[in-house]
Structures are given as structure tokens and as C-alpha cells.
């Protein structure tokens, strides 16, 4: 198929429900805990069964980004010869995911537009959306994601990453990383009140790394969108152009560049790298650690600026940039805006994340501000369509979001 025909086909696919590989449907305690471990989270709300049961949620809860285990969010349609790298994502969360929830996802392509990048010249950005629902039909979260589709052969010549080697750590560096792991703070059951938060407050910091192949394998394995043996061979049969053939004539898929040195090299990267989704999850981990069990992570936006390779260490530092009261379906929500910078061991900014947290407040009669909505409860319907995370009606202590 010629490229113009392919683009016309992709336009016709906009807003059409996509056929997806079935990942997880049932949120089990094991899969929730395993996801937490795969992002290095020690937050007991998401990783300790008995602790979760004792919270107001009444159950072990899933990390908000656990939903990638239901649908990976990899909406890369067509353009088989183009590799894909996720560059942006926006999560909006409406409900908790609890043990026993049965989840579904509706994934759609929203657009395909041309783009030129320094990394790989001319390519495309595909935007997709996934709506996650629970067994009651209630929307649990919405994910909008952008993938850069690029031509690997051009990336191989232009990519600044093609000669990248693993960083060699000094004893001091390793000790600093270990100290940071030990120092990781988890707010837990102690409520973080909106009134006690001010712009400029530190959200704390966490470290993730030095990145090992196991860190990446665990995460991608937990997501569960891998094609194995027969599925892979069938897929290649249906999409022969999607296969990448190495020098030995051996086939694989671009997406496995996160674990395969040769594939990474074929995409212009000297080393395999962290999954993009994994990196959003690290930021989510920092923010959920900070906000405590009684708050709701309402939104998480991620912009990825540089790859994180095997051997890299990422330091995530967060700061409160704003607080406001937002109205959602006639109910006031006490929102805190957080910015998280992610830097590698060289101090390079590798990603920027923005989060909106709905905190508990001394001002409201209801406590906590957003409940998990078991079936017997009147469901929370989410914000009006197109209103984003909530309509800001009041704002205070505003600082530049950067």
C-alpha cells in the first residue's frame, strides 16, 4: 500500500473502536501487587493486601497507572514500517481500581499528523485515546497518548543516542542511590490536607535505577501485551511489514527494542531503554506517595524528552506549583497541581510530569473527598465532557507551572 493510501486508511479509522489484544480483565490482588513491585513501589495501599483492606477503600487498591495492564495504551495503527515511541500521555482518573474489579477498555485512534524531528526526520504523531470502565460500566480513567512514528533507518543515522553506552557508577554514586531508596517517603494514612499545602512545597523525590534489564522486563511483562510464539507468528502472517528482520533473518517486532539490544540499535539507540509507560508510572509513584491514601490522583500528564537507557538512573523531584478549588459536577474539589522533573545521572531533563491531586480539606463535610464508589453507592459521573480535569473556580498561591 502506498503511503498516501495508508494515511487515507488511517483517517478512516479515526474513532473506530480498535481490536486489542486481551490483557487483564480482572484486577486481582496478585496482579496489583506485582504491578506495584514492577514499578518499585513500596506504598502499602497498592502493595500490601491487609493494609489496603484497612483503608477507607476497603481493599487493596491498584496504582492508578495499573490500567496499562488492561490496555497498554500503545495505539500505533498502520505505518508498519515505522517504529513507535511514546512521547506524551495524559491520564485522567475517576475511580479507584480495587481487587475484584472487572475492567474493560475502549481504544481508538484520534489522529495521525505529520511531524519532523531532529531525532528521526520526517515521521508522524499518532494520537489515541483509551477509556477504561469497570464492571458497573462506570468510567475509571481516560488515557490520551501520543506516539512518534519514525523511520528506523533515518533514526540510525540521525539519532544522538546511537553510541550510547551504560554508565559506569562510582561507589559514591551507588551509595547515594541506595540512600535515596531508603529515604523514600510514603505519606500513607496520614491525611494531607489541602489547607496545609502551599505552592513551592516540595513533593519529595524518588530514584529509579540504575535501570536493569529486569526492571524493564518486569514492567513490560506485567503489562501483558506481549505476543508469544503462535500469536507472534500469526501476527507476522497478517502484518508482514510489521516484522523486523535481523542480519540472521530472524524476525521480531519494534516494540521489543526495550529488551533487545539489536532491535534498539536498529531503531537508532545504542541500548535498550525503559518503557515510556513505566516512566509515567514512576512519576505517579512519587505523587501517590506524597498525597497519602485519602487523596485522589486526578490527572497525570507526561512529556518525555529523552530516552532512559539500561544503566541510567532517574531522579524524580516534585514541587507544588498551584492549589485551587475546582468544581466537578457541583462538588468542590480541593486541587493541588504538582510538577515533577525527571533527570538522569548526567543531570539531563528526561521527562516533565504534571499532576493534579484532589486532597482532603478541613472545609468539606464529606470525608474523604472522593470515594471508591462500591456498587451500592451513587456513582460519581466524572467531569462534564471536554472540561478537562475540572473547572477552576478559585485559585490561590499560583506559581508558574513552568
Amino acid at each position: 500500500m502506498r503511503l498516501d493510501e495508508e494515511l487515507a486508511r488511517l483517517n478512516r479509522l479515526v474513532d473506530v473502536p480498535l481490536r486489542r489484544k486481551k490483557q487483564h480483565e480482572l484486577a486481582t490482588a496478585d496482579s496489583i501487587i506485582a504491578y506495584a513491585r514492577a514499578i518499585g513501589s513500596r506504598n502499602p495501599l497498592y502493595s500490601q493486601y491487609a493494609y489496603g483492606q484497612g483503608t477507607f477503600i476497603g481493599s487493596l487498591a491498584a496504582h492508578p497507572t495499573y490500567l496499562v495492564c488492561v490496555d497498554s495504551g500503545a495505539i500505533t495503527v498502520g505505518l508498519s514500517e515505522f517504529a513507535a515511541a511514546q512521547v506524551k500521555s495524559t491520564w485522567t482518573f475517576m475511580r479507584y481500581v480495587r481487587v475484584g474489579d472487572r475492567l474493560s477498555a475502549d481504544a481508538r485512534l484520534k489522529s495521525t499528523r505529520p511531524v519532523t524531528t531532529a531525532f528521526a526526520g520526517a515521521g508522524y504523531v499518532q494520537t489515541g485515546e483509551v477509556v477504561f470502565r469497570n464492571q458497573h460500566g462506570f468510567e475509571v480513567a481516560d488515557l490520551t497518548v501520543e506516539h512518534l512514528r519514525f523511520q528506523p533507518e533515518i533514526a540510525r543515522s540521525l539519532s544522538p543516542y546511537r553510541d550510547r553506552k551504560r554508565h559506569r557508577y562510582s561507589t559514591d554514586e551507588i551509595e547515594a542511590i541506595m540512600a535515596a531508596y531508603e529515604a523514600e517517603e510514603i505519606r500513607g494514612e496520614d491525611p494531607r490536607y489541602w489547607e496545609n499545602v502551599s505552592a513551592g512545597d516540595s513533593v519529595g523525590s524518588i530514584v529509579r535505577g540504575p535501570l536493569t534489564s529486569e526492571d524493564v522486563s518486569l514492567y513490560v511483562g506485567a503489562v501483558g501485551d506481549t505476543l508469544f510464539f503462535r500469536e507472534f507468528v500469526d501476527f507476522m502472517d497478517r502484518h508482514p511489514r510489521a516484522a523486523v528482520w535481523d542480519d540472521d533473518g530472524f524476525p521480531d517486532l519494534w516494540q521489543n527494542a526495550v529488551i533487545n539490544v539489536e532491535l534498539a540499535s536498529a531503531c537508532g539507540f545504542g541500548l535498550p531503554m525503559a518503557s515510556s509507560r513505566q516512566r509515567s508510572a514512576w512519576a505517579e509513584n512519587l505523587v501517590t506517595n506524597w498525597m497519602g491514601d485519602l487523596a485522589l490522583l486526578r490527572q497525570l500528564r507526561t512529556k518525555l524528552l529523552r530516552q532512559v537507557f539500561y544503566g541510567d538512573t532517574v531522579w524524580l523531584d516534585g514541587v507544588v506549583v498551584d492549589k485551587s478549588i475546582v468544581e466537578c459536577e457541583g462538588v468542590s474539589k480541593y486541587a493541588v497541581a504538582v510538577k515533577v522533573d525527571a533527570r538522569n545521572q548526567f543531570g539531563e531533563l528526561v521527562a516533565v510530569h504534571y499532576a493534579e491531586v484532589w486532597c482532603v480539606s478541613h472545609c468539606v463535610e464529606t470525608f474523604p473527598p472522593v470515594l471508591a464508589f462500591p456498587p451500592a453507592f451513587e456513582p460519581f459521573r466524572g467531569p462534564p465532557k471536554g472540561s478537562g480535569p475540572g473547572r477552576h473556580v478559585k485559585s490561590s498561591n499560583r506559581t508558574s507551572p513552568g
Partner: protein
Amino acid sequence: MGSDPVNALVISDAEIDRIKDRIGAWYKSGPQYLSVNQDDIRLYVESTSDSNPLYVDERYARETRFGGLIAPNTFLSLIAHYTATQIGGFPGAHSFHAGNRLEFYRSVRPGDVISPSYRPYIVEEKSGSFAGRMILVDMEILYRNQRDELVGKAHGHVFRLSRESARGNGKYRSVRRSKFTSEDLDRIKAAYAAEKVRGDVPRFWEDVQIGDTLAPIVRGPLRLAEVALRSWHGGGRLVGAGGAVLGAHYYQFEEYQKRSSFAEADDRTGVADNPHRGHWEDDFARKIGVPGAYDIAVQRTAWLASLLTNWAGDAGWMKTIWANFVRFNVTGDTTWAEAEVVGKEVRGREHHVELDVWTTNQRSERSTIGGGVVVLPSRERDFTVPGGNF
């Protein structure tokens, strides 16, 4: 035996005696699962490419003698890996899963809670061309369900050996990754398409003859993804090393701090890393004397089990399977699982068929040798078939 100083260091006589002292003592590994569920069964089945609807199609399964979905018998490996690495000891020595023998008494179905317990069974000194002095450690593991019924029993044995010796001996030095051609791929595609699941058509004991061969099934080409991302459990707990996986980031640091001799540092970063990463890193596999990243042995057991259960049909029951892993199955390899009927006998009301099983790679080398016992219904006599226990 003791002439290799590196080997002597990690496989010392004192350490052998220390581990021998543990023989017979039972340990609880606790259930990895709070309960078995349908998602995990499906993910397991996908990762082994088993296409029997008994494991994934509720409507189909309801009409079988099981009355509902069951897990493949080898699903037990997910609950507790039947390798003897849990036994520990020999700090700094590598573990290679050399074989296993599994017996299955009851089926596992969604909602079951399985609790494994294990004990060291054999600790024995061996030597081989791969790494010189080695210790064979065999572990017995029992799987009980929430009613305290014995569901299955496994023996797994590993060789503990020096990584340096394995690399130095260079047994696999001449093995090169095969060129893969479109004809290879066509052959694999055809084999997948031809794979037959007997399903609800009973295979009667009387219709089986000694010398019958089973149509081979294929599993391959093996890619890193199939080993590294073998998300048998949705959470990927058994990714890679199969049970030895620790968790990401902090969890690895924590473990390596507790067990510094377990870790094997990455030469490039200087950072402690998982010693089992030869399963998902080609260069580390080569460092320990294997030509490339290699499969997890229980995967091959699962493929052989699929061959037997496909053939037996749902009215039958794979009672026993054993396998010795005689060659590495490395990325790029394609594995053909095969079997032949070698015996028939009646034990009480059970009608047994004994089979030799083996796997062959694309170089026509046998990579696994083993056997199995399948219980079939009888057309002519009173019979019983295990497994349908609810």
C-alpha cells in the same frame, strides 16, 4: 575435581555438607497466589501457545467432565517454580535447571488457593563437560489446595556450578545462532496451523498401540520476548528466571543487600544485578558459557505437556511428565516437541499409556529427553481417570 580453584571456591566440601544437612526438612514457600483466576490461566496458556479451549473457553469447559475451566497441570510452576534454586547455598555458584518430574493428582481451577511446601531431596556431587565439578540438588515440592488435598508433586533438580568454569570449558563455543529463512518460517507457520487438539473426542486406551507416534508440535522461533516477558502471571512475577525475580528497583537493592553473594554485578555499570539474567541477556548468557539467552526449562516441560494433553483429549489425564534438559534452547532456536507410545498397562482402574517425550531443535539436536504417563478412558472395562474431582 578440586583442581579448578574458582570452582573449588564456590563448590566447597563444607558447603556441600551444610546443604546436605538440610535434606528432609520441609519448608513452606507460601502461595504466590491469593487465588487462581481465569486471567492468569489465560495468560499462562498464551505464553505456552496451548490452544486447548478447556483452559479458556468457559462454555466449552462447562460441558466437559471438569464442569468448568481448569488450568493446565503445569500451571503449578507458576505457583511455585519447581526448580531447586529455593534450596539456596553455594554462594556465587550458578544454577542451571537440569530436569524435573511432575505428578498431577487433581485439577486446579479458578478460585483455588494452592500452598506449596518443599524440601531438599538429593544433594550429590557430579562432574560434566560443561563445567567440571557440579552439585546436583534435587527438591521435592508438594502442592496442596485450600481443602488440603494434594494437587501435585514435583521434583526439580538443578546443577550448581561455577560460572567461570562453565565459560572456560567452552562446551558451546562452536554453537552459532542459526540463519533463519523464509522456508523455516513457513514450516513453523504450517506446524502451528496443523496442531491438533483432540478436545472433547475421547481417546480410548484400547485404540492406542505401542509404537504410535504423536504429531510433533512446534514452539518457536524463540525470541527474547518469550523468555523475558513470559508474563505467566499477570504481574510478571515469573518473568525471566521463573520465581527468582525479585521486583524492580528498590526490591533488587534490598535483596542484594541481604544476599550479596547472590548478585552478579554488571561489569559495565558496576551495579549488582540478577545472576539469572542469562535468560534475558545474550551477553550475560555468553559470560556463563551459553551461546545466547536461553529459555526457562519449565517452558519446555509445558510444551511437552501440551503435546500430551492435546493428544489425550479432555477425557484423559496427564498424570506424570518428566524431562531432562540436555541442551540449551537459545534465542533463535525453534523447538519441536515429539512423543512415542512405549508402553500400556492397567493399574487398578486406571488405564495407563507410557510415552517417551523429547524435543528437537532446528539443528536436529535433542534438547530434552523425558517421558510421561497419560491415563485414558477404556472402551471395554471399568475405568477411572483422575482430574475431574469436583
